[in-house]
C-alpha cells in the first residue's frame, strides 16, 4: 500500500516535471475521468446488470447465487477480443453497459478514452486480500486512482507437444527456430510484439529494452524484424482459444504461445501436451472489472465486483476458466476444490520478485511512463502487425 502511494507520488512528480518540458501540449497525462468522485457507499440494487465480458466469466455456478442474493439480473454480452470490448464501451458504454472485464491491453485505452471511471476500493472488502501487485497495477491504476478492480490473471505460456519435445523446452527460441517451420502458432494479436521484445531484452541486451510495452522506434523495429523472420514458420495465427486447441489436437502444430486454458482443455481430451514458462520470462494478461462512465446500474456493478472478489468465487472462476486469482486467500479454496491446483496455477506466488518475471499487458502509449514521448503507440503496433502477417 505504502509502496503504491510512493510510486503514485513519484509518478505525479515526474508527470508534473515532464509535462512542463513538452511543447506539443497534445498529451493528457490525466485521464478524462480522473476527477470523477466514485460513490462512497453501495445503495439499493437496480435489479439489472449489463456486462461486457469474456466468454465463461459469468458462469451459472457463481452468477446464479449472485442474482439470488442481490436481485441483480445479469445481461451478458460476451466479446471475442479486446478490440471488440473497446468498441462496445465507446462513449462511456453508451448508457447501455455497466462493466467490462477488460484485459491489460485494453485498459489504458478505456481509461484515457474516458470510457471508464474511478472505482472506490473501500467498497470492496476483499481488495485488502489481493496480492500487492494487483492492488495498484500500472494498467488500471494511474496516479493512485483506481479505474477498476483486478480480477484474475494468467501467463502467456509456451505450449508444446510432449511427443515432439520429450524434454521440456527452456527457451522461447523454439518458436523462432526454423527447424519447426510450419509447426508453430502464436496469437493473432499485435500485443505479441511485446513477447518478441521480451525475448530480445534477454537475448539482445544491447537494445536496452526495459519494458516490452514501451519501446523506442529502434527497439520496436528490432522486435518487428524478429516477428517478420518468424512469419514463414507460422502455420496459423490463432485468434480464438479453440483455434489453438484444434491446431494441437489435429497435429497441425507442435509448439506455440498459449494460455493455461488451452493446456487444460487439451489435457482433458487426452492430447500429449504440456506448458512451461521459459527462462526469458513471459508476458501475462490480467483482467480488470471496470465501471463504465455512463453505467446505468452502478450499485449492482459494485455488488458484482464485491462478489467476484471473494475468495470462494475467485477460486471457482479460476478453476472454471483456467486462470489465476488475485485474491491471496483463494489458494486454500482452490486446494479444497481440486487438490494441487493452487500450485498448478501459480496462485501460491506472493512475492514481488515472481511478479517481476511476468510482464503484464498494458496498452502501449506514445507517452512513456517516464514522461518522454518517443514510445511507439498502439496504432503503430497494429500497422506493424499487419505488415508482419502480410
Amino acid at each position, binding site marked *: 500500500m505504502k509502496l503504491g502511494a510512493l510510486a503514485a507520488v513519484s509518478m505525479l512528480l515526474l508527470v508534473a516535471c515532464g509535462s512542463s518540458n513538452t511543447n*506539443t501540449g*497534445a*498529451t*493528457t497525462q490525466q485521464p478524462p475521468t480522473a476527477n470523477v468522485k466514485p460513490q462512497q457507499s453501495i445503495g439499493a440494487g437496480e435489479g439489472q446488470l449489463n456486462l461486457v465480458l469474456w466468454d465463461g466469466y459469468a458462469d451459472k455456478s457463481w452468477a446464479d447465487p449472485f442474482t439470488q442474493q442481490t436481485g441483480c439480473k445479469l445481461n451478458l454480452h460476451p466479446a471475442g*477480443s*479486446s*478490440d*471488440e*470490448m*473497446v*468498441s462496445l464501451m465507446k462513449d462511456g458504454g453508451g448508457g447501455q453497459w455497466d462493466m467490462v472485464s477488460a484485459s491489460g*491491453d*485494453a485498459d489504458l*485505452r478505456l481509461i*484515457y*478514452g474516458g470510457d471508464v471511471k474511478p472505482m472506490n476500493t473501500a467498497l470492496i472488502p476483499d481488495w485488502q486480500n489481493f496480492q500487492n501487485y494487483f492492488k495498484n497495477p500500472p494498467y488500471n491504476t494511474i496516479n493512485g486512482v483506481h479505474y477498476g478492480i483486478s480480477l484474475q490473471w494468467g501467463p502467456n505460456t509456451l505450449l508444446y507437444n510432449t511427443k515432439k519435445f520429450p524434454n521440456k523446452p527452456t527457451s522461447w527460441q523454439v518458436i523462432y527456430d526454423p527447424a519447426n517451420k510450419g509447426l508453430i502458432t502464436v496469437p*493473432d494479436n*499485435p500485443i505479441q510484439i511485446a513477447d518478441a521484445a521480451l525475448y530480445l531484452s534477454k537475448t539482445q541486451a544491447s537494445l536496452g529494452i526495459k519494458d516490452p510495452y514501451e519501446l523506442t522506434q529502434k527497439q520496436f523495429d528490432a522486435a518487428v524484424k524478429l516477428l517478420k523472420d518468424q*512469419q*514463414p514458420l*507460422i*502455420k*496459423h*495465427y490463432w*485468434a*480464438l482459444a479453440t*483455434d489453438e486447441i*484444434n*491446431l494441437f489436437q*489435429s*497435429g*497441425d502444430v507442435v509448439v506455440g504461445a498459449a494460455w493455461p486454458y488451452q493446456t487444460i482443455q487439451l489435457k482433458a481430451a487426452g492430447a500429449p501436451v504440456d506448458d512451461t514458462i521459459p527462462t526469458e520470462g513471459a508476458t501475462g494478461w490480467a483482467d480488470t472489472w471496470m465501471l463504465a462512465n455512463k453505467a446505468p446500474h452502478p450499485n449492482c456493478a459494485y455488488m458484482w465486483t464485491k462478489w467476484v472478489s471473494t475468495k470462494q468465487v475467485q477460486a471457482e472462476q479460476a478453476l472454471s476458466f483456467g486462470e489465476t486469482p488475485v485474491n491471496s486467500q483463494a489458494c486454500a479454496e482452490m486446494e479444497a476444490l481440486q487438490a494441487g491446483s493452487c500450485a498448478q496455477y501459480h496462485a501460491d506466488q506472493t512475492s514481488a520478485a515472481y511478479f517481476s518475471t511476468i510482464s503484464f499487458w498494458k*496498452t502501449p*502509449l*506514445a*507517452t512513456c511512463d517516464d514522461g518522454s*514521448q518517443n514510445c511507439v*503507440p*498502439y*496504432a*503503430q*503496433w*497494429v*500497422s506493424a*502487425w*499487419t*505488415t508482419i*502477417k*502480410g
Partner: protein
Amino acid sequence: MIWRLPWLRPLLLLTPPLAWFVAIYLASLGLLLITAFWTINPFTTQIVQQWNLDNFRIIVTESVYWSIIGRTVLIAALVTITDAVLAFPFAYYMARVASRRVQTLLFAAVLLPLWASYLARVYAWILILNHSGVLNWSLQSIGLPPANLGYTNTAMWIVFSYIWLPFMIIPVYAALERVPDSLLEAAADLGARRWRAVRDVVVPLVLPGIVAGSIFTFSLTLGDYITPILVGGASSNFIGNVVYANIGIANNIPFAAALTMVPVAIMAVYLTIAYRLGAFEAL
C-alpha cells in the same frame, strides 16, 4: 391523379424506403467514412478533424496493403469463377433434365444449407481440412499422400466456394429456366451440335444470371473476415481483417474508413460492369 404526374409516383413509392435508408444507414455510414479524410492524434488517439489524404497515401504506397487487397480480390474472383463452373451444370440439370418433382426437391436441397449457421459450416470445414481431418484420413486410407490443405489460402478458397454456392445456383437456375426450348430446337435445326448450341445460345442467355449470382459471391467474399480467421494460414489477411484490427484499441477509425472505401470502389466498378452485362435483368 397519380397517373397524370409520372414523376410523383416513383417519388411517393421511393420515399419510405429511401427515407429509412438515408436517415439511418447512409447517414451513419457517411459520418464514419468521412473520417477517412481525417487522422488520429498519436498521443491522445482521438480523431483530429484535419483534412488530409494521409490514410489513402499509406494504403497506396505500402506494399502490404496492395498484397492484402490483391489477395482479397483474387480469392473473391476465384470463388466467383469456381461457383459459376460448379453451378452451371447443376442448374442445367435442374432446369432442363430433371422432372418437376426432382426440380422442387433439388431447389429445396440447395436452399437448405443456408439454414445451417455459416459459423457451424465453416467450423465443419476445419474438421475436414486439418492435418488429421476427414480429407487427409480419406486420402491416406486409400494410399494417397495427405493434402495438407488446412490453414492455407486454398482452404479459404474452398470454404468460400462452398458457403456461397447456393447464391450462385439459384439465379443461374432461374435464368436457365427461362431459356425457351424452341431456341435450342432451332439451333439444332440449323445444324449446331449440342455443345455448340449450349455455348452459342444458352450461355449468352444465362450470362446475366451468372453475373447476378457473382454479385453475391464476389461482394460477400470481399467483405468477409471470419473465414480468414478460422481457416486461413499465416498470410491470409483480408481487407475486413485489417479494418477490424484498426477499430478498437488502436482507435484508428480514419484508417479503417479509408480502407473500407476500397471494397466500395471495387463493387461500384463491378456493379457497373454487371449492369452493362444485363445482370439486373436476371436477379
